């Protein structure tokens, strides 16, 4: 699983960081997404896909 995020599109809602804290974080100054782990372990697959679905601007892409 490979994850990418688009910081330009992100509106800082933090839904990804709520769903998968080991993979996504937010910058302290403006809440924009930070990718902590671009290649998360397989057991986080469900959380990561929830994060992508919950993102209100589709800023998260997950590839197998």
């Amino acid at each position, binding site marked *: 699983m490979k994850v990418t995020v688009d910081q330009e599109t992100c*509106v*800082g*809602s*933090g*839904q*990804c*960081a*709520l769903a998968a*804290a080991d993979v996504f*974080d*937010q*910058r*302290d*100054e*403006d*809440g924009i997404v930070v990718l902590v782990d671009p290649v998360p372990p397989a057991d986080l697959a469900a959380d990561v896909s*929830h994060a992508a*679905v*919950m993102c*209100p*601007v589709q800023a998260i892409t997950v590839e197998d």
Partner: protein
Amino acid sequence: MSVAAGPLRLPFERPNVLDLAPLYEILRREAPVTPVTTPVGDPAWLVTRFDEVRALLGDKRLGRSHPEPELASRISTAAVQDGPMGDYETEEADHTRLRRLLTPAFSAKRMRALTEYMQALVDGYLDRLVTEQASAPDGVVDLHAGLALPLPVAVICRLLGVPESDREHFRSLSYRMANYASCGDDAYQAWNEFTEYMRGLVETKRAELCEDVISDLVRAQDEDEEFDYDEMISLCVGLLFAGHETTANRIGLGTLFLLSRREHWEDLTADPAGRVDATVEEIMRLGAPGDLGLLRYAHTDLDIADVTIPRGDAVILSINAANRDQSVYSDAEAFAPDREERSHLGFGHGPHFCIGASLARTELRIVFAALAQRLPSLRLARNMDELEVCTTITGGVTELPVTW
């Protein structure tokens, strides 16, 4: 049944506080973008299908402001979501600043850091309800007054730095402000009083700014000459209002959904920690208080679903209707936490997506997990149809008599 000739008038009468008017299903199928008359009699477009609602929420050709605000359609006599907001020329820049200012304070990390505090609050409210119930002659207590309302109020007070002792005051102002059944201009009167109250609070706090959102906004307004004082005040009012009313509502509606569909309540009590997240998302999808939608104005002519919406027209995006769209959700009207589709528009979508979503989700998860754990035999003490429903744009019930 078919769609009547001539514009329909909002709001559509609903059978009860949990279900929506059946008319929405017909509109989604036959007229997903349809002309309507607002509760105050002005023309607007109502959008009901998931794809269109979601697309328009992310579309920069619509905004909250109006190029000529005095000509804009008005929605209701409430003082929130009633008409155009903000300055047409600077809307995008103002909104970007607002998000940048607020987003960090409501980040997922900050909300997670508050989990223990929220859990302690909820435990305290439940302890009190248990004591109260034991001594109540009929064994009935009000979950609205004892939990659904005080929790979000306490949490938002702490985050914003508002004294909890003011709660009765801003509660009643919030209610009046959001009331669309009020006489004359009471909602505006309440908005003015709320603004006065907030000015007083801001000036008191200015002497001793601390680590809270209102203090942050005061500092930011001081440092940025583009940031207008009155705008800062109305933002603080908006946060205090949005921060408790909506969440209290969803706690109430969620309880009603679960207790009127016993099998789902039993599923939750069997495994609160494992099931609470999905349950909360389903509450967010179906819990549809109020019957209007999110308000926008077309900033240019735009074509959508075979309709051309002219510049300046009001557009009401029904997230309630979109969240029950059968082309997106299987058995869309059913409360089914186990469904595959986990996304919904309950917190909006796109650039205006709810700033408090992580906060609200965290609160709701703690509440429903705690209720299921501590009061598995919880049930409604009265028939759902007998409960009083608010006439505010945020809707919901004003009481929640329960027993166990």
